[in-house]
C-alpha cells in the first residue's frame, strides 16, 4: 500500500473507530497512536491475528502456564493423551492446527487451552476420569475453546496484538520470542486466574460433547465428569482455581441438559480398559 493510500485508509479507520466513542475514548485512542510508536501498531491491534500470530501467542501462553507446573514425566501417557486429543480435534473445524496436548504435574483438578492448538490437563484431573470417553469430553471442551478463539479474543482485549508488533523489532527470532513471552506473561496470568466469560464455558461444554460424539465416543463423558465434580466440595483445596474460573459444575450440567436431547440414543464406547492401561501409573504413584 502506498504511503498516501495508507494515510487515507488510516484516517478513514480512525474516523470509523472514533465515531462511536466518547471524547475521552477518542483522546485515549489518539494517545495510543502516539505512544505506541505510530499507526502500524494501532492497526495491528484492530485487525484479526493471522494463524501464525495466533500460534505465536499460544506458545507464550503455554510457556507461562508451564511455568506454574511443568509437564508430567510419563511419555506413554503423554502420547496417549495426544492420540485421543488429536482424534477429537480432527472432528473440529480447525483440524490442521498444530495440536499439542500435555498432562502437567499438578494434583489440582483443572484443564487449560491456549491459542493455536495447545491443551494442558492436570494430573489431578486425569485421576478423576474413569474412561476414555470422559477424557475425550474434557479434551473436546478445551479444543472448542481453541477453535472458538475464546482465549485469543480475551487476550486481544488486553492489547496483546500490540505486544506482537512491539516484539517485531527484536534482532533475532529467539530474542523476539523471549520478549513476546515476557510481555504476554502478565495478561496471561491475569486471564487464567480470572477465567473466561461464563458464556464461553457453556459454549465449550455444548461443543465438547458433540466433538466427543463425532469422534465415536459415548457423548456423556463430559457430563459424567461434571457429575463427578458436582459431587465434590467446591471449596476443596484442589478445586479452588477451577471453581473460581468456571461456573459451578451443577450449573453447567443444568445448562447442558436440554441440548443433550439431540444426542439421545447414541450407543458408543467409553473405552475404560485402554484408559486404565495408560493411567495406572498415576494411581500407583499416589499410593
Amino acid at each position: 500500500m502506498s504511503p498516501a493510500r495508507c494515510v487515507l485508509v488510516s484516517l478513514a479507520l480512525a474516523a470509523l473507530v472514533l465515531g462511536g466513542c466518547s471524547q475521552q475514548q477518542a483522546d485515549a485512542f489518539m494517545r495510543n497512536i502516539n505512544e505506541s510508536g505510530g499507526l502500524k501498531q494501532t492497526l495491528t491491534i484492530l485487525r484479526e491475528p493471522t494463524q501464525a500470530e495466533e500460534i505465536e501467542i499460544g506458545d507464550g501462553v503455554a510457556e507461562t502456564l508451564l511455568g506454574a507446573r511443568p509437564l508430567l514425566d510419563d511419555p506413554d501417557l503423554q502420547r496417549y493423551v495426544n492420540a485421543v486429543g488429536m482424534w477429537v480435534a480432527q472432528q473440529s473445524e480447525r483440524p490442521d492446527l498444530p495440536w499439542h496436548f500435555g498432562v502437567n504435574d499438578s494434583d489440582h483438578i483443572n484443564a487449560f487451552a491456549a491459542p493455536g492448538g495447545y491443551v494442558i490437563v492436570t494430573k489431578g484431573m486425569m485421576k478423576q476420569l474413569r474412561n476414555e470417553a470422559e477424557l475425550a469430553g474434557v479434551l473436546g471442551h478445551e479444543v472448542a475453546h481453541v477453535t472458538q478463539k475464546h482465549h485469543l479474543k480475551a487476550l486481544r482485549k488486553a492489547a496483546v496484538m500490540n505486544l506482537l508488533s512491539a516484539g517485531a523489532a527484536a534482532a533475532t527470532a529467539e530474542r523476539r520470542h523471549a520478549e513476546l513471552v515476557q510481555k504476554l506473561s502478565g495478561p496471561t496470568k491475569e486471564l487464567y486466574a480470572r477465567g473466561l466469560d461464563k458464556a464461553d464455558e457453556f459454549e465449550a461444554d455444548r461443543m465438547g460433547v458433540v466433538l466427543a460424539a463425532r469422534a465415536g465416543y459415548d457423548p456423556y463423558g463430559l457430563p459424567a465428569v461434571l457429575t463427578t465434580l458436582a459431587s465434590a466440595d467446591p471449596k476443596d483445596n484442589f478445586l479452588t482455581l477451577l471453581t473460581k474460573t468456571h461456573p459451578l459444575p451443577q450449573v453447567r450440567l443444568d445448562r447442558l441438559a436440554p441440548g443433550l436431547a439431540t444426542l439421545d440414543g447414541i450407543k458408543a464406547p467409553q473405552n475404560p480398559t485402554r484408559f486404565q492401561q495408560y493411567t495406572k501409573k498415576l494411581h500407583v504413584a499416589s499410593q
Partner: protein
Amino acid sequence: MGSRISLLILFAAFCMPAQGADAGYAGKAVDLLDRPGSQAKVVARLAKRQPVQIIGRNGSWANTKSANATGWVRLADLRLHVATSKSPASPSARANPGKKDTGIRGFSEEELLVGAPNQAEGEKLRRLGVAAKDSAIFARAANLKPREQDYIQVREYMPEGGFPEGFFDE
C-alpha cells in the same frame, strides 16, 4: 422444567459405570423403593448424606445398599464419592505454594501468578503431538466409529416452558 430434570436423570444414568459397586451417598433425604419407577413401594428412607453402595442400575434408577436396607433410588438423587484432597493443604503449603514438603503439587492461583514462563517446558510440549493419520489408527484400534453430529444450538438450550426463575443466577 420437568423435561430438564428427566434429562439430568438420563445422563446421570449414562455417567454410572455399568458394572462394579460405586460408593456414594444420598444428595438429599429420599425414599428407598422396592423396584424402579414411581409406582413402587417405599421400603425405607435414606437420610441426607447417608452412605450407599450402588450395586446395580436400571435406566435412570440405581439399586443401592445401605447399612440397613437395599432398594432403588433415582440416580440424580445420589452423589458419588470423589477422591480429591485427602486433607486440606497445611498453612505452610498455603504460605509456600508448590513446596515439596507437603507432597502436594499445585496449580493454584498463587502458583500461576508467581511462576515465571518456562521455555524449556514449552519446547517439550511442542515436541508432543501425534499425526492425524496415527490418531485415526489409534481410534480404529478401539473400535471408535466417527459420526456426523451437528452442534447443539443455543435455541435447543431452551427447556419446555422456558427457563425457571433464577436459572441465570450464578
